[in-house]
């Protein structure tokens, strides 16, 4: 986790959870804070990876929900994944 935090600190990263529709970028790190998500940090990290969110993958926010721009539909390489902004905060992109 500490290596990831260094990466996160050294580059101007944006959490995917704050990006708007139309954003395109690359995943810099998966960094799960132990905050409000309903899952333990390690479990959330594993689930994100299982859906293809790994460092280096390209992402694009395709759609946003009607209320509070949440959830978001993210194209990750060839697949499209729906997730909430709260969980997307763990995905750092540039």
């Amino acid at each position, binding site marked *: 986790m500490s290596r990831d935090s260094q990466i996160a600190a050294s580059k101007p990263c944006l959490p995917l959870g704050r990006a708007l529709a139309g954003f395109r970028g690359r995943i810099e790190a998966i960094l799960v804070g132990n905050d*409000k*998500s*309903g*899952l333990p940090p*390690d479990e*959330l*990290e*594993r*689930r*994100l*990876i*299982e*859906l*293809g969110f*790994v*460092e*280096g*993958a390209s992402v694009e926010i*395709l*759609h*946003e*929900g*009607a*209320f*509070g721009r*949440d*959830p978001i*539909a993210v*194209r990750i*390489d*060839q*697949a*499209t*994944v*729906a*997730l*909430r902004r*709260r*969980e997307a905060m763990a995905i750092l992109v540039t």
Partner: protein
Amino acid sequence: MSITTGLGAWHFALVGTPNSGKTALFNALTGNRQKVANYPGVTVERKAGVVHTPSGRCVKIIDLPGTYSLRARSPDEEITRDVVLGRLKSETEPNLLVCVADATNLRLALRLVLELKRVGKPLLLVLNMFDIARRRGVEIDVARLSAELGVPVVPSVAVRRGGTVELLKRFDDLTGGSATGCAGSSWASPSSADLRAAQRQADAIMRATVHVPAPDTLTARLDAVLLHPVAGLAILFVILFVMFQAVFTWAQPAMNLISTGFAALGALVHNALPPGLLQSFIENGVISGVGSVVVFLPQILTLFLFILLLEDLGYMARAAFLMDRIMGGAGLHGRAFIPLLSSFACAIPGIMATRVIDNKRDRLTTILVAPLMTCSARIPVYTLIISAFVPAKQLWGWASLQGLVMFALYAAGIVSALGVSFVAKYLFWREDPSPPFMLEMPDYKLPRVKSVALGLVTRAQMFLKRAGTTIFSMMVVVWFLASFPRPPTGAAGPAIDYSLAAMIGRVLHPVLAPIGFNWQISVALIPGMAAREVAVAALGTVYSISGGSEAAQQIGHVLAGQWSMATALAFLAWYIFAPQCASTLAVIRRETGSWKWMAVTFGYMLTLAYIAAFATYHIAVALGAG
């Protein structure tokens, strides 16, 4: 376990990510040689079948629930893990794993293949939907992919005739020799570092062997409209509205045909048999009882047709996306949308579908409210009362008033489900943060006639089986209660006044009188506890026996003459909530593993039903509809 190369000694297991077309492949391979049941002890659906290879060998094949990893997170995925690892005692350990992947979306599947390799069993990767991939310009170097993975790879097209020839040939080669022993499993639950490393390896293999063009433009263009914050929601509601109007209008001709058929059959028996007990039993107990339920088959199939089409189209995941925030406001998970939508057909598959929700609390809330969604068993009751009491008027030239009332009843069910889950979430389980909503959205695909037809046939069989067993036996009980004891000779009133049914009805009547129910309704509610639609047939039996056999064909007319509008409305309100389905309660007990939650469901629904019917009746009476 010793493995011999005899008949039926080969056991293959189909494993794959969700939306990989695994079930379509299973259907193509096994055709009608398949059995759907449950794994013992749990309600995860077990689909097994037999494949005949070109040289005539038999292979037993089992279709496992879709998963991204053997790291089980839900009951469905636990089954997949346990069968693959040979840990499930009731299941023969598979001697070959067939990993099914969507050729247009290989990335996550390749990581799963790398994980499955660690299980140590012979493995075969099937690139399904190979035709779509090729049409879209996806180029896969199959030989290289096989070499890089160290696993044989076969392309297939599950939905085309001849699309599985190569796969079946490969099955023949694999089953030609004797089964090789398993190398021994080195699988352990992967850590996030393991998963990361495996995904990187999979990505490297992808780059070396697969050329991927731009993403599917058709899906992107459709999503631009269907997932649009405003237009998307509007379209979703239009789809739901059309669905309910269709249930009412499209099914009508077929329903008329069925009811005419049963009426003719009843008349035939009436004329063929001498008047007496036997005639009454066959005509009123059996034919009109079963007929009054079977007549709703067209409506149920219309509803399932919509659900199956939307599912095959890939729209269901979009609906979950659109509804996530709205459902979240009521304390429900976006994923709960699919189980709740299925509950419109029947709460049982709906409750079973909640297994895709991995969080326990969320799953429990969904199970609690699923029976409030208007299931198809309520349609008979609603239709009967609406057609008897609501005038068949057209409003604004296009919408039928009856359809609108039906829509309002559905809306009442939805609103109360959201209300109950809101109360559960924010009063009882306030401290729990809501778990994440993460869902892969598959590309749109044209639904296949064959798979939709297979789904409809299965539903029809299930419904007719229920009509033939549960409902039929309840009808016999009702007929018996309504016919015995026989009235004394020279009695003045109708025969049913002297029966057991009337006695039970009169005992219950004081409790139900405040909500406007007469004793006939009280009688009909007793068998209605077994299944909602039985109440219609029971009312028919109660009234036809008390009013002559012709009345059985026109229950609605009789009710219109005997009930006040207020009673009819109270009856509808009762039916929005009442927990009148023994099978649903049994499934809740099984799914939650506790009598407590079954009792909670029964109790809260009964309370709501009584309050709703009470309020409706008294408001209607006050407005002059008494």
